[in-house]
Every structure is written in structure tokens, then in C-alpha cells.
């Protein structure tokens, strides 16, 4: 018997591309080709719209695309190497490049508002500084979640609950007692940490995916309660008129006693934006500083030990209960800080802002950046949030693209963009980064 004759390059490519085209047709024929719409006017009549051209276009694009890929890459005996990973350093960044990148980003973040003001003027730079504030908020949340997921290896899908607790703590304290931002900021952090412990207690025994689903459930419970406790939280209407922060007692207002008149500047609304920028920048740096210090302390080593192997951890006499609870509490605390910042920045909050999608985005930032990598979180936040806002014109399509990008980046680099770790403890002075493949992801 002779081995089955191998198809020639062209025939094989055509076959494969035809398969792709048929699948595309099956996917598209109903969902794209026909659109059900509701007739306006009285009665809710449904009617159909036909868009067969779009289906044909999708099928042709997939066929042509697969055919080209087959002919030039996939089915070739000697595929030309188009090494996309070449753009990123092999095996991750060495410690040297990583620290250069770190200081470069830090320097950029320090001068960013003034550079933007210089180039674009107060009016033009406002939206970019706003975007930078948003990115920094996610960086802070990512760093906070990194303690729970990256260091302690506990998969938390309800992180946004603590963000909500922080935001609502500030908003409610300000609403009912008239407390100012600077009193509420630590209180919000403490309250969120407290909730972290309360929600952490019952899930101590759970592992891995069970932990994920219970934290998701807790996140939803908190959101549903906020949504339905109308008398206290304002329900779906949310809370508005949340006071703005002051700069050492100076309000950002026009006229006497305001920030501008105290420093002899002309009043401009951009002052407050720049102040908010530096506020979140300082808060994010504080998060990073605390995390990096804690990593070197016994508790931080206990977290990493817990992530690597829970049983060994217990055998070595580490109290896993307190280790897990501190991770939950600290992660929650930083989310609480970020939440109260969010409330004061927006001036209005509602349960709409704390959906599961937020949790998913924060987790995606942590994982895409490279679990446990601080700089990776920054890069992922810039790529995801910055890129997301950049495509604001394509309002309809951007969430679709966002989801696809998540899939593509993950398939391309499953270990995240920065996939090397500097070990917290090393024998030699010049510790080298190790590949993340050697790091466990924890079992919860």
C-alpha cells in the first residue's frame, strides 16, 4: 500500500480555505445576513432586513485571507519566519532593561500633564489628561488585584465589589455626614479591607475555579444590593453631588480662597484635572511601593509560597488562613482607595459603573500584563484602556474589538506581555529574571 498521496500546496490550500469559507457562511448567514428589527410606531412588529452583501464579503475575506496564509505560511515546507515575538525581548525583559523602562515610564508620567499643556494648551490637553487619569486608575486597580491574583494566586472575579465599596463609602459618608475626601479616603480603604475579610472568610476553603465563581457571586450580590436599596444608596439613580477634593484645604473654585487665587494664577478648570492626575499618580505609586515592600517581607514570601504550593506551605507552618485573608484585605483596601478616588473624580456614581465587566477588565489587565509583573500591568493598562478610548469614534465596534484583542493577545502570549519575573529572594546579588513558565499560577 502506498501512503496516501499528499495534496499539492495549491490544492491543500484551496481545500482548507473552502472549509474556512463554509464555516464563515454558517456563522454569518443568519446572524449577519438577516437582521430582526422592531418596527417603530405602535405595536411591536418584527421585520427582517437582508444584508447578503455583508455575508458575501465576510466569506470572500475569510477565503482570501486563509488562502494567502496557507500558500505563504501554514502549508509551506519552509515557512518564512515572521517572528512577531522578536519585537518583544526573548524570554522577557532582563532586569536591566526592565528598570530602564520603569524609570522611563515614571519620568513620562511625572511630566505628562505639563508636556500636554505645553503642546495642546489647557483646552486641548484636557481630554488626554482625563484619559491618563483613567489609565492610572486601572493601573492602581491592577496593582491591587495583582496582590491577590499575582502574588497569592487566589483567583478573584469579584474585585470590582471592593472598588464599589470604596466609592460608595466615600459618597455615602459625604452625603450623610458631610465628611471631606481626605477623611474618607483612609476610611474607604479600611471599610473595603473589612469587606475583603468578611468575604474572604467563607471562601477560605475553596480552591481555584470555585473561588472564582464565589467571588463573582459576591461581586454581583453587592451590585444587586446597591441597585435595590433605594432609600440608602439611591438605587439605579446613584448618588450625585459628591464633593471634590481640596488641595490642603484649598478648593478648586473661582474667586477668593480658591487654589488659583492663593497661588496668584488665573482660574482655570484644568487645575483640578491636573491635581486629580497627580493624586491618582501618587496613590498608584503608593500601591506599588507597598506591594514591592511587602513582597520582601515574611507575609509577601508567604503569599508566594501559597501560590506555588498550598500543601507545602501549610507543612512549613505558615498559617494559610491569615495569609489568604491579608492578601484579600490588602487587595481590597487598594480597590477601596481607588473607588473613593473614582467617586470624587466623577462626582456621580451608580451601580452601572461596577458591573462584572469591570472585574473582567481589571483581571484581563493583570493577566495580559503578565501575572505578578508590576510593569506589565502598566503596559497592559495603557494598551487596553488607552487603546479602547482611542477608538472612541467607532463607538459601536470598540467593545467588539476589545474582546477580540483580549483573545488575540492571550493566544499570542499566554503568559502575558512581560513574562519574566525577578525572584523576590535570590542567592546571588545580581538576580536574573526567570521565565514565567517556571512560576506556578496557584490553585486558589
Amino acid at each position, binding site marked *: 500500500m502506498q501512503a496516501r498521496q499528499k495534496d499539492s500546496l495549491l490544492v491543500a490550500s484551496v481545500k482548507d480555505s473552502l472549509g474556512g469559507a463554509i*464555516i464563515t457562511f*454558517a*456563522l454569518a*448567514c*443568519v*446572524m*449577519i445576513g*438577516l*437582521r*430582526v*428589527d*422592531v418596527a417603530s410606531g405602535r405595536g*411591536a412588529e*418584527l421585520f*427582517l432586513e437582508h444584508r447578503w452583501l455583508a455575508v458575501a464579503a465576510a466569506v470572500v475575506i475569510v477565503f482570501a485571507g486563509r488562502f494567502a496564509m496557507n500558500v505563504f505560511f501554514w502549508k509551506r515546507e519552509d515557512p518564512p519566519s515572521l517572528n512577531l515575538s522578536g519585537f518583544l525581548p526573548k524570554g522577557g525583559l532582563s532586569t536591566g532593561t526592565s528598570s530602564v523602562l520603569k524609570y522611563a515610564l515614571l519620568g513620562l508620567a511625572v511630566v505628562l500633564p505639563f508636556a500636554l499643556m505645553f503642546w495642546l494648551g489647557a483646552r486641548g490637553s484636557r481630554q488626554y489628561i482625563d484619559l491618563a487619569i483613567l489609565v492610572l486608575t486601572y493601573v492602581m486597580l491592577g496593582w491591587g488585584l495583582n496582590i491577590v491574583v499575582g502574588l497569592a494566586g487566589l*483567583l478573584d472575579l469579584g474585585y470590582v465589589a471592593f472598588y464599589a465599596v470604596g466609592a460608595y463609602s466615600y459618597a455615602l459618608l459625604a452625603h450623610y455626614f458631610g465628611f471631606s475626601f481626605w477623611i474618607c479616603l483612609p476610611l474607604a480603604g479600611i471599610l473595603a479591607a473589612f469587606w475583603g475579610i468578611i468575604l474572604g472568610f*467563607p*471562601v477560605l*476553603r*475553596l*480552591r*481555584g*475555579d*470555585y473561588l*472564582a*465563581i*464565589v467571588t*463573582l*457571586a*459576591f461581586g*454581583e*450580590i453587592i451590585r*444587586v*444590593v446597591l*441597585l*435595590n436599596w433605594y432609600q440608602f444608596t439611591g438605587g439605579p439613580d446613584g448618588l450625585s453631588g459628591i464633593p471634590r477634593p481640596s488641595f490642603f484645604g484649598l478648593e478648586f473654585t473661582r474667586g477668593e480662597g480658591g487654589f488659583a487665587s492663593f497661588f496668584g494664577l488665573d482660574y482655570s478648570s484644568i487645575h483640578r484635572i491636573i491635581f486629580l492626575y497627580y493624586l491618582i499618580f501618587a496613590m498608584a505609586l503608593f500601591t506599588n511601593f507597598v506591594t514591592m515592600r511587602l513582597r520582601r517581607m515574611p507575609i509577601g514570601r508567604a503569599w508566594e509560597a501559597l501560590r506555588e504550593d498550598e*500543601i507545602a506551605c501549610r507543612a512549613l507552618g505558615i498559617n494559610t488562613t491569615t495569609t489568604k485573608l491579608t492578601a484579600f484585605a490588602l487587595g481590597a483596601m487598594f480597590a477601596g482607595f481607588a473607588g473613593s478616588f473614582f467617586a470624587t473624580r466623577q462626582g456621580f456614581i451608580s451601580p452601572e459603573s461596577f458591573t*462584572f*465587566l469591570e472585574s*473582567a477588565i481589571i*483581571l*484581563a489587565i493583570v*493577566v*495580559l500584563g503578565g501575572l505578578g509583573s508590576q510593569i506589565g500591568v502598566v503596559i497592559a493598562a495603557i494598551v487596553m484602556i488607552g487603546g479602547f478610548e482611542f477608538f472612541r469614534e467607532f463607538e*459601536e*465596534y470598540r*467593545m*467588539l474589538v*476589545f*474582546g*477580540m*484583542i*483580549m*483573545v488575540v493577545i*492571550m*493566544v499570542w502570549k*499566554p*503568559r502575558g506581555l512581560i513574562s519574566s519575573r525577578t525572584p523576590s529572594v535570590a542567592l546571588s546579588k545580581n538576580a536574573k529574571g526567570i521565565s514565567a*513558565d517556571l512560576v506556578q*499560577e496557584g490553585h486558589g
Partner: protein
Amino acid sequence: MDYFLQQLINGVTLGSIYGLIAIGYTMVYGIIGMINFAHGDIFMVGSFIALVLIVALGITAATPVLLLILALALVLVVAMALTAVWGWTVERVAYRPLRGSFRLAPLITAIGASIALQNFVQVSQGAKNKPLQPLFSGSFQLTDGGADGSGFIVNLSYIQILIVVTTVILMGGFTYIINNTNLGRSQRACEQDRKMASLLGVNVDRTISLTFVMGASLASVAGLMFLLYYGVIDFYIGFLAGVKAFTAAVLGGIGSLPGAMLGGLLIGLIETFWSGYFSVEYKDVAAFSILAIVLIFMPEGLLGQPEVEKV
């Protein structure tokens, strides 16, 4: 008592829908150990495909009963096939390249696929709610409300009968496939030990793909049921239904098929009774609290096997 009976009927109907979705979760979790977050959205896509087909075929309440049933059967079959293609594609694009990769990677792609599917439907079908006029309006009255008409009238609508009967038939067929066919055997083999199964000549990739295909087609049945029962769908229904169904799968013991069905029924009943006797607003809180409590005291679920911790 009559009110209780009515809630029981409604709960069983809702539970059947959850159970059908839960099977997709539990099978995928059993075989590759991941939460398929996009499954709820596959259910939503199935529901939309069914809606488009119903409108395209011009099925209305005015259609003669026999024709109506035939047409719905056709819709069901086509929707199952097309949704299966969606399930297959999601697995092929988002999960297969990451097989054997680290644990969180497929979870993130699943969330990404879920976001992408939701927004794809929003773009292609529009963000508005899609109300469908009820196709079956009749019902049996199980109680007459007493002689003076003061009692509670218990209704068992035709659509509820249809949902429960279809679910039972599908469950039967499905159990048969898992227990008695080659496909079922290879699925169970992959579930126990993927490497060993592939050494013994089971095509693991194909088996996993078929698992997704089966899960997706059951989800599309649930989608059609949901559409017929509630009469209105939008692109966001997948999330909540998905989370509830996953809750059901975990409650019943993840990886166990009867467990998924039992869990679905329980979640449906809890939700219905909670809305009936306490408050509608907090029905989700009730379902999730039950989940948390069950997991804390019985992490393996009701019918699941306890996980043995190995060093």
C-alpha cells in the same frame, strides 16, 4: 397551596432552561477543566438565531397548530446546527491554541470571547429589545379558583408543557449518547485522563470539539425555550443566564450530568419561590447566596465526586 403549585410549575420550567445551559458548562469543565465563560453568550446567540428563523419563516400565532409545531421543530434543528458551529468556532479560535497552557489564559480568552460575542450581536442585530408575540397562548387550568371564584387559578400553559417535555426528551437522548455510544465513551475517557485516552487512540481534540458542539446545541434549545417563554430577548441575556446556569452546574456537582440538571431545577425553584414569597429584586442574591453556602459546606456540590488532594 394553589399559589405554591403555580410557583412549582413556573420553577420547574425555568429550571429546565437553566439545566439545559448548565449541561454545557459541566461537560466542558469535566473534560478540560475550564469555565467556559462564553457559554452564556452562545445561549444568547442561539436565542437570536431562533428568533431570526421564526421571523424569516413567518411563524405567528395564526399559523395552524400542526404546521406551527413542524415549523418550530425545523427552527429548533437549524438553530441547533448553526449554534453548534458558533460553539465549535469559539473553541477552535479561543481555547484550542491555549490547551496545555497555564490555567488563567483560557479563562481570559473566554471572557474576551464573551465580550466579543455580546457586542457582535449588539452590532449585527441592534441593541433594542426584541419582543416576539406569543406563539402559544392557551393553558390548562388546574384549579378553578373555588366555587366563589376567590381562590387562586393555577395555570399550566402549553408552552410550559412543551419546554419540560422537550427538556426531558433531550436529557434522555443525551444520557444515552454519553452512556452508550462511542462518542460518549471517548468523552468519559478524556474526562478521566486525557493523555491516556490519546495513547489509546481516542482523538482528544475531536472529542473536545464535539463536546463544545453538543453543549452549544443544547444551549440553543434553551435559547429557543427562553424566547418562547419570556417572549423578549436582547444581546445581554447571556450573562445572567450563564452565571445562573454555571451556579446550577456547581451546585449539582460540576462534571456530573444529572447534577447539572438537578442543580438547574434547584436554582429555578429557588429563584421562583424567592420571587413569589419574598422579593423579586433580590432573587439573584438568593441564588448566589445558596451557591456560596453550598460551596462552603459541600465544595464538591450535591452529586459531584470529592476532589482528592494529591501531593
